[in-house]
């Protein structure tokens, strides 16, 4: 079974540039998460979806970040105008359903973003 796939693996930008991250979750997983993991910190939830619907985006900096999952499968996270403080690894994760809080999240390898 294929795992969670993310691309690109690395991105290096100047401040003010835009960047998009792409995620393909495990087939059949209807819940998808985007986490930001700054260096030397734990992953911090940005947004998560069930199918195509946003369930919680309260931690997403809405002025510059956006996330979509139009068909309830793949997802794109975009930063419109990157800042140095956005330097982090962006992790995508998926899980099967909302039935129980104990379901395991499966993570992709992440996109490591450096903003100069």
């Amino acid at each position, binding site marked *: 079974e294929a795992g969670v796939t993310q691309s690109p693996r690395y991105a290096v930008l100047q401040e003010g540039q835009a960047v998009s991250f792409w995620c393909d979750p495990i087939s059949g997983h209807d819940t998808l998460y985007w986490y930001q993991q700054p260096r030397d910190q734990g992953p911090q939830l940005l947004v998560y979806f069930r199918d195509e619907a946003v369930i*919680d985006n309260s931690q997403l900096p809405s002025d510059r970040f956006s996330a979509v999952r139009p068909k309830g499968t793949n997802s794109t996270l975009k930063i419109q105008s990157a800042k140095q403080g956005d330097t982090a690894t962006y992790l995508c994760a998926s899980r099967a359903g909302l039935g129980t809080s*104990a379901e395991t999240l499966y993570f992709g390898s992440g996109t490591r973003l450096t903003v100069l």
Partner: protein
Amino acid sequence: GDSVTQTEGLVTLTEGLPVMLNCTYQSTYSPFLFWYVQHLNEAPKLLLKSFTDNKRPEHQGFHATLHKSSSSFHLQKSSAQLSDSALYYCALTPNYGSSGNKLIFGIGTLLSVKP
């Protein structure tokens, strides 16, 4: 709100010695607790998770016991191996409403096992 506390940023051990990584939590309802492990340049992977009954989860020699009275879920192993060197995250999922689908992480503990 819901939170996880890991007090040690770095734990350095000699191979063969016991491992104990601390984790305490705060949550309004009885949450599910998890330990994830992240090796260098890899994705976090589930190591073990708490059960709703009193069973003690175990995996790869690691175990953790959920103590609701002290809100703790410490990770233990009787004998550290060099391959155990990694980042260990304690995390919880609140057990209520739509929040029951968020995984909230601690800051992580880096375990370094030396020969």
